């Protein structure tokens, strides 16, 4: 009996070894169940991977991250910068054969902004005239909101104030067009296979919740059928299991867990992509000793960022300024360098005796990377400044609640780009940003960020952003940028043309598999 079982296993093993990976098919790891495929409601990095294959928007980002025409063939901006007119491409059909019209965008934006939809990312369109009031339920008539479809091929958007990055904003999934008739017909189940109608390079064929999504080529895609027949996206949560499945030939594309990166670094399957994602330490400027700007500067100067890549080994890029390298208007010259001498002098100048100072507490959310970083920073401050430092960790949601109610003296956070414009990063620390947990407010900084968002002239915009970054990272220092992160992949040699974007997005439209 035992012999028989072993023989059966062996036979299966042999047949497995002989079988080839299916041609023109790609098997990827999504890691977790996408919380939704409803692009009005999606907010997370998993849902967007699936949605970006199924749908398209008004614009798409080119290799240099500049917005390029997509569903909009071209667009005009009014001289005052407040009105955008998008001219839609002709001959685009949904997967059920219905032609795309401008009203589909109006319907989508109305649903995104409607209070009853409770879309978390409704605020992406808060720059549109009346949108914020409509979302808050203060404006009942959507006709008063600044988005209209005068004819089937024209979409007119009116903004409260000029936003030079608006064409980049409408590349984001929550703004994609929507078929109101189908949402009304199927209710919450409109995104299930069989109900979901899309217009991107792939269509949804199967969704086995918590296990896999299957996408197949859209034969009628307006830009031409994609080379792949099928994408199977599994949801393998455990990174090391996914990597073994990759090594077994059962997956073609996986993320490499941090501990395995070193083992993969020299292999041909390894692919690293620096991201527009920053990792920073924030100071609560209301809590002593960080209410003194000299102390904040001293603590920032005592950090040797060059040590992080060797510590974490995930392709981290040290960064002293906040706009990530690779994003327009980034400036690597800015920010405070590592200078422990000057740091100690500043502490003395502030009248702080390191030996007398109460222990400084760093709080982070429980995670291996965060722990390594916190312990490193602890060592920098202890050895460089002579202060006592404690580190504490918290479960993620407990941590978030603490940040919004009583932020710790020193905390960590990250920020990834939603759209490739510096406004997305610098807006974070304006006095009115919900994401500014530092308690720091500087009207000059706020004004610079607001002016830059309206400034069409590139050179002037660069000057404004440089000035804002100087205030943020050199003068007032409510936060210290540490490094930008990278994505690390293992890609099967049978896959060609896979180019992950700096925003950690994947597009499989041009990918092929032998």
């Amino acid at each position, binding site marked *: 009996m035992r012999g028989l079982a072993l023989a059966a296993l062996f036979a299966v093993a042999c047949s497995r070894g002989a079988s080839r990976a299916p041609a023109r098919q790609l098997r990827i790891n999504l890691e977790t169940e996408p*919380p*939704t495929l409803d692009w009005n409601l999606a907010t997370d990095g998993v849902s967007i991977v699936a949605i970006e294959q199924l749908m398209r928007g008004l614009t798409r980002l080119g290799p240099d991250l500049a917005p390029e025409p997509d569903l909009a063939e071209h667009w005009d901006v009014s001289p005052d910068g407040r009105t955008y007119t998008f001219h839609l491409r002709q001959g685009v059909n949904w997967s059920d054969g219905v032609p795309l019209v401008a009203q589909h965008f109006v319907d989508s934006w109305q649903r995104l902004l409607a209070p*009853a939809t*409770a879309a978390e990312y409704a605020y992406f369109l808060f720059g549109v005239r009346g949108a914020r009031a409509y979302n*808050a339920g203060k404006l009942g008539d959507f006709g008063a909101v600044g988005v209209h479809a005068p004819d089937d091929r024209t979409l007119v958007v009116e903004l409260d104030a000029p936003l030079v990055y608006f064409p980049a904003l409408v590349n984001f999934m929550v703004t994609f067009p929507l078929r109101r008739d189908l949402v009304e017909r199927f209710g*919450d189940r409109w995104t299930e296979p069989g109900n979901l109608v899309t217009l991107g390079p792939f269509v949804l064929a199967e969704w086995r919740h918590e296990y896999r999504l299957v996408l197949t080529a859209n034969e009628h895609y307006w830009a031409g059928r994609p080379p792949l027949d099928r994408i199977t996206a599994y949801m393998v*949560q455990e990174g090391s299991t996914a990597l073994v*499945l990759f090594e077994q030939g059962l997956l073609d594309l996986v993320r490499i867990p941090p501990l395995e990166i070193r083992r993969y670094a020299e292999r041909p399957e390894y692919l690293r992509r620096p991201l527009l994602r920053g990792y920073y330490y924030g100071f609560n400027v209301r809590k002593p000793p960080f209410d003194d700007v000299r102390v904040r500067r001293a603590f920032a100067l005592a950090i040797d960022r060059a040590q992080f890549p060797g510590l974490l080994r995930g392709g981290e890029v040290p960064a002293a300024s906040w706009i990530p390298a690779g994003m327009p208007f980034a400036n690597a010259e800015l920010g405070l360098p590592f200078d422990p001498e000057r740091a100690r002098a500043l502490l003395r100048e502030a009248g702080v005796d390191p030996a007398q100072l109460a222990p400084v507490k760093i709080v982070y959310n429980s995670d291996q990377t965060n722990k390594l970083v916190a312990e490193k920073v602890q060592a920098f401050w202890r050895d460089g400044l002579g202060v006592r430092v404690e580190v504490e960790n918290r479960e993620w*949601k407990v941590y*978030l609640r603490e940040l919004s109610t009583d932020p710790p003296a020193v905390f960590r956070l990250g920020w990834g780009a939603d759209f490739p414009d510096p406004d997305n990063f610098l807006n974070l620390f304006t006095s009115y940003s919900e994401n500014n947990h530092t308690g720091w407010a500087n009207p000059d900084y706020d004004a610079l960020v607001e002016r830059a968002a309206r400034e069409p002239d590139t050179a002037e915009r660069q000057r404004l952003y440089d000035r804002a970054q100087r205030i943020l990272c050199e003068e007032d220092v409510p936060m210290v940028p540490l490094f930008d992160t990278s994505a690390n992949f293992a890609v099967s040699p049978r896959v060609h043309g896979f180019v992950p974007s700096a925003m950690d997005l994947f597009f499989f439209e041009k990918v092929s598999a032998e």
Partner: protein
Amino acid sequence: MTRYALGRILAGIPVLWLVATVTFLLLRFLPGGPFDKERVLPPEIMRNLAHRYRLEGTLGEQYVDYLERLARGDLGPSYKYVGRDVADILRDSVPVSLELGAAAFALTVVGGIGLGLAAGARRDSRVDRAISLGSLVGVSAPSFVVGAGGILLFGLALRWLPAGLWEGPLYAVLPACTLAALPTAYATQLTRAQVAAVMDQDYVRTARALGVRESRVRRRHVLRNALLAVMTYFGPLLAILLTGSFVVERIFAVPGMGRFFVTAVTNRDYPLVLGVTLVYAALVVVANLAVDLLYAWLDPRIRVGRGEP
């Protein structure tokens, strides 16, 4: 007997209510809410979310609202998986955990009793020592170690079995064995101890003296009496195995409900936490009842459903 079973099931309802209430309160005292995110949401959007998910009003009002819905059999919407109800999520994931759990349970029953009997019947033999050592290892090794070891050996070194996914019987081998490892080892120890104790009983000696064949002695006289204690363990074990294991499902990418015991809590997906907890509690009630009924069948001295004489 039927009346007794029905009575026990009805008595389970207050148990479930208690479980629901305690879980509801514990969740609400946990800091952090379902919509606390890295990107903080503007206040008007938080209000819209609270309205959509009926998180407005006092805790007492929300509790009454929840119980009313529960009484109607409505477990509510998931906060994390937009547009899906908890019932949908359970409908998709429970069958997978049941399949995997049933396989692991079968392995445990057959393996644990078989090995325990083999060891207990030949106390201090080489077989006994080997089995005892093996079960000691099995009881001590956590499932992530057993699972990782299985993946390394059968997935990477020998390449016999897939390291994960859920595509057919072959894919169930590693997770089912990993899930069964600890309970099998424990059931082996339990059975061995009971068998060893029963082997010394007078009635066993008498049966042997009367010339009853050894295999019949073991089956009829030893095993049946030894199993009573082991059955007590199998009841709750069945509930534990059928509701899935976070570790095993995560390591092997099995789409069962075990993962939600952890992820639903970290997401503060209150309705989903309550849903999986209630399923688990209901299974415990049913499994314990099944064990009590089996008891009566195994040992005629135990009578269910009648008062004391």
